[in-house]
């Protein structure tokens, strides 16, 4: 083996130019693969980590639902976001799990913002419980003005972007202490209006175009805007004529103009007008003795109405274990909830990120394939040029296996040495990029990077994968020309 190694080294030294050309190509190829894969790995783990650490946690518990559901709402306008059933029981079990580091209940809704009777903007609202929010996400936002909501306090913390939009329309800056009117609409509660005081203006530390639109509202007002504190409708009683119009109807049935038609043969009826001069007092009493604003049923406690319960684990490796425990518990108790990961919770942003990264991955793959083809081609030419030399070696008694081993070791040596140089070069480039930071100059780059700046780090998996790939390709690439060279008779090979 040592003889083959010596010969291989000698051959590489003797064919310095050839060795250098192949080596440089391998180095560049490896560097491209290492840099590209490291960039992708950093970006992927970046957006994942950003969302898990700052917005979603590792596991999200939601009520059972049909369509897709993210922290920003449902993709179906007709399907309200379900409330987690038996929230207190769910919370008690979650808090008893040793793997859970923190938990955070959350509700979400959209609202129109009005000031001085004019619409000034829109807000994506997260309803929060301040203490639990800060326990799970102690450092995910920076207060620019005002104070964080106190426990039990009502008010809104406006995102910087929303505050800027309102300020522009108002022609004066909004500030903590100002009041704004929020109007929310829901299927259960209809339209709801709430006046809230701005408690703070803040920005998230790791914003993206989706999250930076989020403002934080106390849960009491959010529940009102989202119709979460509305009781289920009582059974509907319909009159016979109303029932008749519920089924299939046709214009013939409605406008037939015969006695069999739904409205008979007369288009216009004479009506007996109610002769009742209504006084102001009469009109103030039109709701009778029943209370106008229905109080929330004391038997039904809405204080536990939440859309999501986010869980942060002490160790992400325990996601599977915790999910299994939760599923078993919910099945035993018959609680209808769903478990989601950060990708579902992050919604559009995670989807767009995955889509854009797939395209980016394909580009890297194409670059890698081109690099590999060049390396293979150069190796083929290199071995073909040495057919005479191989013939001579065979003529003086070298076995086929000896020649095969010799070429293979040469290839591995080139791949190893120049591959390492490529890795080092890639590492230096990545180090510089890490120090400088690659700014995301547009929204697409922000989505890929998962933030405003990407600071790539050398990915060990990218290094190993690139080296192994190039070595395997090198060895495989040299097999064909070697087998061609060995098939030629030594005399003919020497003559060529």
């Amino acid at each position, binding site marked *: 083996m040592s003889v083959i190694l010596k010969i291989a080294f000698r051959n590489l030294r003797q064919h310095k130019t050839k060795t250098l050309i192949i080596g440089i190509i391998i180095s560049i190829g490896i560097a491209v693969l290492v840099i590209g894969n490291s960039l992708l790995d950093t970006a992927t783990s970046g957006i994942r980590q950003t969302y898990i650490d700052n917005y979603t946690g590792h596991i999200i518990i939601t009520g059972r639902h049909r369509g897709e559901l993210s922290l920003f709402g449902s993709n179906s306008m007709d399907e309200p976001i379900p409330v987690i059933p038996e929230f207190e029981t769910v919370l008690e079990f979650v808090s008893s799990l040793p793997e859970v580091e923190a938990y955070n209940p959350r509700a979400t809704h959209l609202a129109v913002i009005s000031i001085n009777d004019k619409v000034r903007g829109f807000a994506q609202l997260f309803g929060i419980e301040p203490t639990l929010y800060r326990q799970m996400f102690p450092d995910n936002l920076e207060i620019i003005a005002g104070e964080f909501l106190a426990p039990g306090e009502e008010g809104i913390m406006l995102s910087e972007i929303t505050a800027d939009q309102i300020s522009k329309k108002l022609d004066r800056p909004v500030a903590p202490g100002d009041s704004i009117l929020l*109007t929310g609409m829901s299927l259960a*509660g209809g339209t709801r209006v709430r006046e809230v005081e701005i408690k703070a203006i803040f920005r998230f530390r790791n914003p993206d175009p989706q999250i930076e639109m989020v403002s934080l509202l106390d849960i009491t007002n959010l529940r*009102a805007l989202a119709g979460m504190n509305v009781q289920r409708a009582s059974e509907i*009683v319909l009159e016979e*004529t109303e029932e008749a119009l519920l089924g299939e109807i046709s214009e013939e049935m409605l406008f037939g103009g015969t006695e069999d038609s739904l409205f008979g043969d007369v288009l216009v009826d004479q009506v007996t007008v109610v002769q009742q001069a*209504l006084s102001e007092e009469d*009109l103030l009493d039109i709701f009778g003795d029943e209370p106008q604003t*229905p109080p929330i049923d004391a038997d039904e406690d809405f204080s536990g109405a939440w859309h999501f319960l986010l869980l942060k684990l002490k160790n992400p490796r325990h996601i599977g274990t915790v999910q299994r425990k939760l599923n078993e518990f919910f099945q035993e108790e018959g609680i209808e909830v769903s478990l989601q990961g950060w990708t579902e919770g992050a919604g559009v942003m995670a989807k767009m990120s995955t889509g854009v990264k797939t395209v980016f991955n394909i580009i890297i793959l194409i670059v890698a394939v081109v690099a590999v083809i060049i390396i293979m081609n150069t190796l083929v030419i290199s071995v073909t040029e040495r057919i005479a030399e191989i013939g001579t070696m065979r003529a003086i008694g070298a076995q086929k296996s000896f020649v095969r081993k010799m070429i293979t070791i040469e290839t591995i040596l080139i791949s190893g040495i120049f591959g390492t140089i490529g890795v080092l070069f890639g590492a230096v480039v990545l180090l510089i990029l890490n120090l400088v930071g690659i700014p995301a100059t547009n929204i697409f780059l922000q989505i890929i990077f998962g933030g405003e700046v990407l600071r790539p780090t050398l990915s060990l998996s990218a290094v190993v994968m690139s080296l192994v790939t190039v070595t395997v390709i090198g060895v495989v690439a040299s097999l064909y020309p070697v087998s061609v060279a060995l098939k030629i008779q030594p005399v003919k090979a020497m003559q060529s």
Partner: protein
Amino acid sequence: MRRVLLTGVIVAFLFSLTAQAAITQAEIERVLRNVDNASSFMTTDFSAEMTLISQDPEKGVEKHVVRIFRRDREDKFLLLFQEPRALRGQGYLLVDDSLWFYDPESRKFSHTSLKQNFASTDAKNSDFRHSTLSDDYRPVSWSEGTLGAYSVYIIELEAIHDEVTYPYMKLWISKSPNLVLKAEEYSLSKRLLRTSLFPSYVKVGDSYVPNTMILTDELVKGRRTQITMKGISIDKLPDSVFTKSYVERVNR
């Protein structure tokens, strides 16, 4: 065969031209004015109790009961929810060209738009305002036809400003009296959004009120709202009814 078909097409085309030519634009504009006049209460006030029943393949059936107060000569209306219980006391007040929504829980008013849906029904807030077809639209084509047993004018309209809920409409208007029996309402891209049917009217004083309306959402199959009216009155209402103060006080 082809010659027969071609002749048929030409005859049909000429016939349609003749039909349109037979009725002048001035006559159609007069029909629209008649519709506006017949369905407005310019000398009296108007109040009634409306029941809105909405059916949806996903959400099932919902029922809303609403008191309506109208003063058409001043372009004012007030809608007060009586049912369901969760919405009781909520109101829509149109005064001074502004539509206000009132939430009795927070006792706050917020500005809203006539183009928006009324609660979760297929009605629009603008459906409760008195008819202003002749002010908001111009007729672009018209013909005569029938709808079931009734002879009608079929008129296509185009909005003359962007404050209307629907930029394009097609109306089937009965000939005597001039009442809208059917309306197809289109978006700016001329996509059919809603079909409204008015199969039954009642005469109140000199005006007509559709006491049954069927509004079909053409975008969501199976979504429909029927509106019926009862307790109709044209007695004078106190001026205070059309004020924010009344809406607040009635909720005390």
